[in-house]
């Protein structure tokens, strides 16, 4: 990077832009399972939708079940702790798969 560039105002990044900087080794199978039966009686105000730093959990319009974009997961494990209903079965992805930090 040259000095001129380094003096520019930084670009505003969306979360999608940020996730684009992350290297993933794509796993075929999900490492996250959500028990939608428990979700129906959610007592956490659907905290998974808010708290996940990679927005893995989304509620699509017209759907009642949470959609899980497991391929975006940064493997922090926050969802598992935040979901005090224990509806999220989060496991480590298959060996060698998932997020692969280049800097860390």
């Amino acid at each position: 990077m040259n000095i001129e560039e380094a003096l520019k105002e930084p670009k505003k990044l969306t979360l999608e832009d940020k996730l684009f900087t992350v290297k993933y080794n794509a796993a075929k199978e999900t490492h996250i399972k959500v028990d939608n039966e428990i979700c129906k009686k959610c007592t956490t105000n659907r905290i998974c939708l808010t708290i996940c730093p990679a927005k893995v959990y989304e509620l699509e319009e017209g759907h009642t079940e949470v959609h899980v974009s497991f391929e975006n997961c940064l493997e922090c494990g926050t969802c598992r702790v935040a979901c005090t209903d224990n509806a999220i079965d989060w496991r480590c992805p298959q060996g060698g798969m998932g997020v692969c930090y280049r800097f860390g």
Partner: protein
Amino acid sequence: MDEETLKFDAIVVGGGPSGMCAAYTMAKAGMDVAVIERGEYPGSKNLFGGILFTTILNKLIPNFWEEAPVERNVISRKFSYLTEDSQLAVELKTEQYNKPPYNNTFTVLRSKFDRWFSEKTESIFNENSFVFSGFTVIDVIKEGHKIVGVVTDKEGPMYADVIICAEGANSLLAEKAGLKKKPEPHDMVTGVKEVIALPPEIINDRFALAGNEGVAIEFFGKAVEGMVGGAFIYTNKESLSVGISCSIVDFTHKNINPNEVLDKFKEHPSVKNLLRGGETIEYSAHMIPEFGYDKLPDLVSHGIMLVGDSAGFVNTSHYHEGSNLAMASGVMAGETAIIAKQKGDFSAETLSLYKEKLENSFVMKDMKNFRRAAKFLHANPQVLNDYPTTMVQSMVDYFTISERSKVEIRKDVIGGLIMDVKFIKMMWDMNKARKVLL
């Protein structure tokens, strides 16, 4: 190693600093060690804010900084309180930290550093020791009460006399082994971070540094929307580590996404210009255990010891020390395994020597000393919010230039302070804060 059944003296689950310190210690004593790492390579799953404390590492590998991929040696620690539009900061910068061993404080990028440490450890391994990368351990193998091995998702079972569980903040294996329960939201902190690239000349000029000198800046208050936690900027060689970390219970109560908090922090007028022109080259997220001394898991059982983040060894005060405690616990678990092997006894009784070692070291002494820090800050939000915010505004008023006499201004400021804050309550709180935080 027994060829047919894949049996080692010790299996270390997780190739981070605590696990590698255990492996290094045992390998030096000639033991057969297997390190099982779930990432593509050790370091690929690992993340922290960016400061590695290295008193333990420097004992294992003297003058490691001459060969390890460290970024910068930290000569300056800055603590900064942010309000909506102002900043009040204290900076300690000293040449005393600018010579070996550099106050054992270095900025580091974990993917590079942990990989180096793993290679360094492998270089002293005997022919029966290995680092297995790309293997996820999914369960322990029990014989009666004793843990005798692990199951991975690839090969068959692997056996060992002792398992050292160094799997990190997400300690699913320790839960399966019955050593701890699933953590509660107030037990854990979540951090998100961006590595922001900038030319080294710009970093040096912007932060008043030369050569390989680095600075660690911690931010509180508005930096994290008043939550219990903090934000940080650490200087690497050609990038900045910029992030925030707060308690999961706070994110939950505020119903706010960690990335939004980070974006707001980056927009603060006192922060924005430090990041100017930078290009985000990696976004990342990780948890930090903050359950503290009073909620530590069972550290030892028959054939297993917990080290590092899976044990919860993090100093939750303003020291933000985790890596050093992790590495110390790894070394002590390794030393205990060596003695257990000599005795041929890996029972919980023999392995409890590990707990004794911890108790006699800075690890447990610091864990004990700061045991009430996080709880106090959660129970007394005024300490990180109302009091400092009022103080900053009083200083802004005090230094506001006008044609009023300084005596009048001072009277107003002090009068305002007394009106604003319940003075005796504040003194009382701050005295308590001093006791639990310092």
